[in-house]
């Protein structure tokens, strides 16, 4: 913020600071320094006062010293030479009989963050490690970490590292914990503190002396320890057990994290037992007073559910939303509720969610409706009844989300289509936004034979197409009208003719026009051709089973437990099931050396239709159909990779879309996964591969990439 009269103020302050009368009177001197800091925190640039402030540092008044240090640390990087002057005062303070002064000087010496001062700081830091006051040792230990982060590539002084290791036995728990923190920083490249049995047991024994921050730190470091025997493991677990009851959520979470990392290798039974043990404390954390903690806990509950689907099913009431809770918590809770649904509680959960659908906040209402839609994949009748009831409210935003939800539901649960088709009648009047109308059009197109009014609804849309703004709605309208035309030609022919005429002759959007032209020419090829292109599958039940989803092994996510990562996935959308994760990697057209991928086989069945591919690729760019490079296609076909679409050869950027299913031939039975891929060549060296996978399987992805690069290699010698 610009501060008026800043320069005047600085001048006046300089005068005051260099006034011998002010310097002589401690009270006045301090209040002047205080004014400098006050102006500084108001945003005025007071860097010009640096040399005056350096002088003000030489004082017996600790508060004034602190204020000057705040100033110096903010401006030191601008005045490296002048900062040298401070070092002398600071080094003198390091000899002060008062430990508070010593620790203050030492802390600020390392906070100046000037690489040029390192040589002056090392000696006081070394002395500080052996100071008799714990508060000085605390600062000195962290000081070494700061020095190292200032010069991360400098050689590590083995003597210091040894001293820090030995100081893990310091009487003061904070010194001990700071040693851990410093060693973690200094030995970052080697993987942090080496935790052997002696250190691990020492840390475990002193855990109770530490404050909550220290406990979290120690528990975190211990994650790297591997007990030598099962007996030792159980001893450690029972020692840690009480910490699950800690009033501090972070300590509880750190303990859980340690439980998981200790158990997740080797002992699946213990690891599952640990997860069950985790249930109660996590539930308690979900009820904490601070919304942020609640949010963090909810995110971690979601992690847990990935490995134990349906755990906590009986505690579903704990995830009901409070009226005043922030929207991000409500949305998380609903996502959790969807996962917890079972035969016993589905009625109660749906009742509760139904209440949220009419929430004053549209975001909450929409989240609730989508949640009901997801439950509908397992309990379709009950959910459809609620959704249909919501349409009766004739609220714009509700109807839109309900129709979208119904579209998604019908795609995975074909048995719902009957009731959805009935419910659709008459809701076109309430729909205003383009998302909702697109969903309605898709439904009308695919199920036009069952919605008696379909041709007439479409006709109304076509009549208003001139005033339609959204291109998405227009393309959806084209496809829908074409599809309805195929099953009810007599009623739709006239409408379709008018729509095609408008889109080809008057439409300004090229995408819409091209699509209209494509359909027009397709119709010339005959009705059977058109039918084979336009009428793909109406549903894909394999995509969305909610119950009986395979449990992920704990090791998949144990590493990210109690970090920021689970919170970051919050904006990924309501789909909390393991999602298709895009991989981006640059690929040299040379086969990578084998890594056990030989077990992996690829397969083309079940075959995908172009629509399905497009639907799965989810908003991927549409690609013009062209002549495929025959050599590559054949090479891919031999490797059981189906090419879906090509750009014509010799155009840039050049793209290929492809898919395959992975099959495992090895002794370990694993489910097949579907891999969708895009190859992108923009000129220059290398080919970019983007792949999506469902469900996620890193091994399979590796194998797929290997096969793909092999195929590319064989064909690159041929045509491309």
């Amino acid at each position, binding site marked *: 913020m610009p501060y008026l009269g800043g320069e005047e103020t600085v001048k006046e302050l300089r005068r005051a600071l260099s006034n011998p009368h002010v310097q002589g009177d401690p009270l006045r001197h*301090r209040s002047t320094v205080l004014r400098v*800091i*006050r102006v500084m*925190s108001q945003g005025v640039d007071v860097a010009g006062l640096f040399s005056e402030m350096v002088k003000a540092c030489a004082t017996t*008044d*600790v*508060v004034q010293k*602190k*204020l000057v240090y*705040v100033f110096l*640390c903010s401006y030191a990087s601008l005045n490296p030479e002048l900062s040298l002057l401070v070092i002398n005062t600071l080094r003198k303070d390091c000899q002060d009989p*008062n*430990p*508070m002064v010593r620790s203050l000087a030492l802390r600020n010496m390392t906070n100046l*963050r000037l690489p040029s001062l390192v040589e002056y700081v090392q000696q006081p830091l070394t002395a500080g490690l052996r100071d008799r006051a714990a*508060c000085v040792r*605390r600062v000195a230990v*962290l000081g070494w970490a*700061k020095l190292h982060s200032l010069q991360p590539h400098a050689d590590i002084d083995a003597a210091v590292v040894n001293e820090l290791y030995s100081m893990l036995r310091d*009487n003061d728990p904070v010194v001990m*914990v*700071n040693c851990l*923190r410093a060693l973690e920083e200094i030995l970052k490249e080697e993987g942090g503190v080496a935790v052997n049995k002696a250190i691990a047991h020492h840390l475990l024994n002193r855990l*109770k002396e530490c*404050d909550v*921050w220290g406990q*979290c*730190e120690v528990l975190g470091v211990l994650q790297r320890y591997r007990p030598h025997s099962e007996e030792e493991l159980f001893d450690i677990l029972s020692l840690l*057990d*009480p*910490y699950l*009851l*800690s*009033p501090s*959520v*972070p300590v509880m979470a750190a303990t859980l994290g340690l439980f998981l990392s200790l158990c997740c290798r080797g002992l699946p039974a213990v690891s599952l037992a640990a997860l069950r043990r985790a249930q109660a404390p996590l539930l*308690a954390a979900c009820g904490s007073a*601070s919304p*942020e*903690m609640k949010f*963090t*806990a909810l995110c971690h509950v979601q992690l847990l559910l990935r490995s134990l689907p349906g755990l906590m099913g009986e505690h579903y*009431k704990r995830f*009901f939303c*409070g*009226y005043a809770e922030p*929207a*991000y918590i409500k949305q998380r809770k609903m996502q959790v509720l969807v996962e917890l649904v079972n035969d016993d509680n589905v009625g*109660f959960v749906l009742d509760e969610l139904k*209440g949220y659908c009419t929430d*004053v*906040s549209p*975001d909450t209402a929409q989240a609730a409706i989508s949640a009901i839609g997801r439950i509908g994949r397992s309990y379709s009748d009950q959910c459809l009844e609620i959704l249909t009831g919501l349409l009766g409210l004739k609220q714009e935003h509700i109807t839109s989300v309900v129709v979208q939800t119904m579209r998604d539901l019908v795609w995975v649960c074909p048995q719902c289509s009957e009731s959805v088709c009935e419910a659709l009648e008459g809701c076109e009047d309430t729909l205003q936004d383009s998302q909702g109308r697109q969903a309605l059009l898709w439904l009308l197109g695919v199920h036009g034979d069952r919605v008696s009014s379909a041709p007439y609804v479409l006709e109304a849309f076509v009549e208003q197409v001139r005033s339609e703004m959204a291109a998405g709605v227009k393309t959806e309208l084209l496809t829908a009208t074409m599809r309805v035309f195929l099953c009810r030609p007599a009623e739709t022919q006239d409408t379709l003719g008018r729509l095609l005429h408008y889109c080809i002759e008057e439409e300004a959007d090229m995408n819409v026009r091209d699509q209209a032209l494509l359909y027009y020419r397709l119709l010339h090829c005959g009705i059977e051709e058109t039918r084979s292109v336009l009428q793909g599958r109406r549903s894909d039940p394999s995509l969305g089973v909610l119950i009986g989803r395979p449990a992920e092994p704990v090791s998949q996510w144990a590493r990210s437990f*109690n*970090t*920021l*990562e689970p*919170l*970051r996935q*919050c904006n990924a959308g309501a789909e909390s099931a393991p999602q298709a994760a895009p991989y981006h990697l640059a690929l040299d057209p040379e086969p990578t050396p084998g890594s056990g991928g030989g077990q992996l086989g690829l397969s083309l069945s079940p075959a995908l239709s172009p629509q399905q591919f497009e639907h799965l690729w989810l908003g991927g760019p549409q690609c013009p159909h062209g002549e495929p490079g025959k050599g590559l296609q054949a090479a891919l076909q031999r490797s059981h990779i189906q090419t879906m679409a090509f750009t014509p050869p010799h155009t840039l950027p050049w793209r290929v879309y492809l898919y395959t299913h992975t099959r495992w031939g090895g002794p370990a039975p694993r489910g097949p996964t579907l891999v969708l891929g895009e190859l992108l060549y923009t000129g220059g060296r290398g080919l970019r591969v983007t792949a999506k996978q469902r469900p996620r399987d890193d091994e399979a992805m590796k194998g797929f990439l290997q096969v793909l690069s092999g195929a590319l290699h064989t064909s690159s010698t041929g045509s491309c």
Partner: protein
Amino acid sequence: MSVSAVFLLDLKGKVLICRNYKGDVDMAEIDHFLPLLMQEEEDGLLSPVLLHGSVHFLWIKHSNLYLVATTNKNSNASLVYAFLYKLVEVFTEYFKELEEESIQDNFVVVYELLDELMDFGFPQTTDSKILQEYITQEGTKLEVAKSKVPTTVTNAVSWRSEGIKYKKNEVFIDVIESINVLVNANGSVMSSDIVGSIKLKTMLSGMPELRLGLNDRVLFALTGRDKGKTVTMEDVKFHQCVRLSRFESDRTISFIPPDGESELMSYRINTHVKPLIWIESVIEKFSHSRVEIMVKGGKEFLMRAHFGLPSVENDELEGRPPITVNFEIPYFTVSGIQVRYMKIIEKSGYQALPWVRYITQSGGKQLNIFI
């Protein structure tokens, strides 16, 4: 944990005070905080973590302040939030109210505190009772700063200083319970639980050793006693002074208490309670002109309110906010929890008196009743 810097912002996003702990994130990044927050709020995606480039903002809001921590590591989120709340707690104990004005009035102390609370992104001394021994607002009045280090900075018992003296040794125990009842639209109780806490006000000399006895069902089962009413506690959480291992092994609550006021423990009891107070409300709308709200409470009170309304009407659906009732019932606990004894042992052997008080309060999400 790795907090790079901590900021205190006003509601317009202006930095009031900041402290750069690690120097690995550009301090100017904070300028992106508020625009990002407003953007996400508009999109309905607001969450307590905001991301800008590789910098994460973890934030909480307190009165007219944002407290923001920045980090570029995959740090421990719950720990960072706990630290931000600790900041609020410490500042509140220093300034009574934590708000923009109190920060501006006390910024010297705020700087001093920020310096002591954290070093290089790691929390250091965070107990406000200990901090108050060597950082004081009176310090500004220049009494040639304290030269003595408080023993607590080096003490093994970090929550209590040595050498505390009282003329009269007393300890006050408050058992406070609140009930959460969730009632659905049909008026039936969906779930109910009791959340309780035991608070202490300790005025004891020296380093006393305290033992608290409750009518805990698990304890009674352990010792084979079964007379009188007992309670089953869940989600029991203790102040750090309580020896958790002893509680785990034989359910004994033993501890050296912090001086002054503190919360010793909290618990939850999951039982079916009949709502203590019952509210019925009837809202009647008379077309455009007026709305009548009738609220009936218990058996004795009836409130009937008429509001004359302007004839302009909002098209939007009106939300029905739940009715919240605040009440307090002294000398009564719903769960029937009892303090059976409080033993106080100090090596000087003084006699001390424990005082117990029971209070029942309305809970946080009390009585969400729609009729």
